[in-house]
């Protein structure tokens, strides 16, 4: 009975704290987390397709660059990459601004935290996406490329009409995995001061001393985000492969 009362107290405190404004803050945190994830995925898609092309290239030099990119950015701790872009960006910006005289010799020009974080997470996401794109390209039936060549299609036409549509179709499941990974990586950019979900939960926990409550809520919200995206990607997979399902 006492346990039940205790539980009731906990729930009402939780409700009061969330209604007192932290709930809205956490919702904004979700919005920022999604913004970071989407922008990072887009940066990653651009870099990833270039790196995949480099890795598939016939030129040794390009292949080496592609290989190094995926090895380095999948092999380093995410936190290190984020620090490198945020603090390293500050170092570069400050150096440039000081030498041009736009700030005083003791001032510091900070890297915008959203930009630094998104670049870092985007570059990491790009390394994983490159592998997904490369795998999808290799899964395209060789005969289709040969047929396109036999029709006299130019390289650009082959790329646009044969390669891109198929790579996109085959890459959907892999991109779903990278998306989940990127959502989780986005929690790390709280260290640079972007007010996404993790940092908001952190602030709430520190200022109210209810860390258990806020970290649990944050955890649940991340679970909601990752589990909501699963059926979306499944649907996308069904949609893009609708002409490849076996007739019943």
């Amino acid at each position, binding site marked *: 009975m006492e346990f039940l009362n205790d539980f009731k107290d906990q729930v009402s405190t939780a409700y009061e704290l969330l209604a007192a404004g932290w709930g809205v803050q956490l919702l904004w945190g979700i919005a920022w987390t999604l913004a970071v994830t989407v922008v990072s995925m887009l940066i990653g898609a651009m870099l990833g397709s270039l790196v995949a092309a480099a890795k598939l290239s016939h030129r040794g030099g390009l292949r080496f660059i592609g290989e190094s990119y995926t090895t380095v950015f999948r092999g380093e701790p995410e936190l290190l990459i984020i620090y490198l872009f945020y603090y390293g960006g500050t170092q570069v910006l400050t150096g440039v601004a000081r030498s041009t005289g736009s700030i005083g010799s003791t001032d510091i020009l900070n890297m915008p935290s959203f930009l630094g974080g998104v670049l870092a997470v985007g570059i990491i996401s790009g390394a994983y996406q490159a592998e997904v794109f490369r795998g999808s390209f290799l899964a395209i039936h060789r005969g289709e490329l040969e047929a396109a060549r036999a029709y006299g299609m130019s390289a650009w036409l082959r790329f646009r009409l044969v390669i891109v549509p198929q790579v996109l179709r085959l890459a959907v499941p892999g991109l779903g995995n990278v998306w989940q990974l990127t959502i989780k990586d986005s929690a790390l950019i709280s260290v640079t001061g972007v007010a996404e979900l993790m940092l908001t939960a952190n602030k709430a926990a520190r200022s109210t001393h209810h860390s*258990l409550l806020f970290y649990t809520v944050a955890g649940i919200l991340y679970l909601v985000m990752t589990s909501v995206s699963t059926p979306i990607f499944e649907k996308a997979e069904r949609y893009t492969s609708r002409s490849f399902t076996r007739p019943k």
Partner: protein
Amino acid sequence: MAFDFYLSTMWSVLKALPLTLEIWFFGIAFGLVIATGLTWLRASGSKLGEYFTRAYVFIFRGSPLLVQLYLIYFGLSQFDFVRHSPILWPILRDPMYCTIVAMALNTAAYESEIFRGALRAVPVGQIEAAKAFGMSAFTRFRLVTLPIALRLALPAYSTEIILMTKATALASVVTIMEMMGTAQKIQHDTFRPIEVLTCAGVIYLLLNLSIARLFAWVEYRLSPHLRPPPEQSQQIRPVPEVL
């Protein structure tokens, strides 16, 4: 001057390598124990075990490790019984132990899925052959299922171990001075983040590359039956007519 700075930074970060390896090792070791338990629970066929492992995997794979770490380090200490427990409190008030606990719980979720997949991928024919030989369930598991499943699990397991190496860097956010924490401190003292983080990055990369090489070697050693015989691999032999 610049070279000296790189050298001294490299050396300071390297001195923190044992601590990183300690977190890494214990995280992986405890994670393996938990993962084995989870896999067993899932394979045991009980409905309750299946629900539990499904929920466990869903929770620990669906949320960031950082949230799990904060929840364990900052969150659990709010319970009175945790603070008054003579067993739990010494573990949960220490950031080092908390990191190890968080990493072990997290990696166990991923590993149990890897092991489950590997167990399912053991060819049915091999198990049937073992049954036909009259092997007991335990002998079958020890001599047929387990060796094959371990070899099948190895590539995915090595990926997971590399993810764990990367995860040790998170210990720095709960004040542990492992490699990342040390690099952070030097960076704050000198305001030369690019140089310092490059040094740390080189060490992490070398560490991960050697782990990957080690696993590749183990995999090679464990699959001699899958390699083409050395003297015949050069030439293509004609397919016999009997087929």
